């Protein structure tokens, strides 16, 4: 891919951001490519070192604050025509509940994900507590002369303790997964705002 293609593709995929931001980014990458070429690289090699357009866009998006993205989208560069404003006001009963439901759907998705995590830890805690309880009844069993009961309680304590440890490890992995997923979700939401041609 040569410089021209890279830059125009980058510009296309960044559309939706404020124009000044796009210009600045594109000229930054243009300078980077030119400097590499001056350093003795071919144009293709220089572009390749910068990385794929998608990768670049993804980095930009992940660093771009969501609030700024929304603002750039909501505040159009051209003035809104009157009919659009009238439509917006008349359509309020339609789009407002829709907006609220979209926002609350995303919100409840987040909430559900974290509830799953909390549930896992609560169950894990329950295992650990019951395991300790079994240990106590084991002691009680031996003290009162019920050796068989004591041994059974000890077995239960071991099994439950092991389960607690395993579940704890599993839960930690789940947290990592959830964090990764929420990051991806945020990136997905951001991609709704940029890269769409007007």
């Amino acid at each position: 891919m040569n410089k021209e293609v890279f830059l125009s593709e980058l510009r296309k995929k960044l559309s939706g951001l404020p124009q000044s931001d796009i210009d600045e980014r594109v000229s930054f990458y243009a300078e980077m490519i030119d400097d590499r070429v001056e350093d003795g690289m071919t144009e293709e090699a220089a572009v390749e070192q910068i990385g794929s357009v998608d990768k670049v866009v993804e980095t930009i998006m992940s660093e771009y604050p969501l609030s700024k993205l929304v603002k750039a989208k909501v505040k159009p560069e051209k003035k809104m025509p009157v009919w659009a404003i009238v439509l917006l006001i008349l359509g309020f009963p339609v789009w407002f509940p829709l907006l609220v439901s979209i926002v609350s759907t995303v919100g409840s998705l987040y909430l559900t994900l974290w509830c799953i995590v909390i549930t896992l830890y609560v169950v894990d805690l329950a295992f650990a507590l019951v395991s300790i309880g079994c240990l106590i009844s084991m002691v009680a069993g031996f003290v009162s002369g019920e050796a068989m009961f004591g041994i059974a309680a000890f077995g239960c304590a071991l099994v439950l303790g092991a389960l607690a440890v395993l579940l704890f490890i599993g839960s930690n992995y789940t947290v990592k997964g959830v964090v990764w997923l929420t990051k991806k979700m945020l990136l997905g939401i951001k991609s709704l705002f940029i890269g769409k041609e007007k």
Partner: protein
Amino acid sequence: MDIQLKRGLLDVCVLAAIKNEDSYGYQIIKDMKPYLELSESTLYTILKRLEAGQMLTVRMVEHQGRLRKYYHITQQGIERIDEFKNDWKDIEAIYRFITREDGSNE
């Protein structure tokens, strides 16, 4: 590496790269390459952040028929480096504390 720690570290690295003389994007990346790999996108964000924090100023210089952005460190930028050097002493003390705990546990 912890993302907050890395971010602070990279800011100071870029400031250090322009401390002695004004430099431009690709030169900064080349200068830092032996120590850490820095992508263009990351550098852009750092430069923007430093500019917003008035730690550097930007000027356009004509170079071979095109414009190149040169970055110049400000007094505040130099102070930021010094601040980091002082912070580093604290970090070293904390590091010694952490490794000492390691030794006593195992």
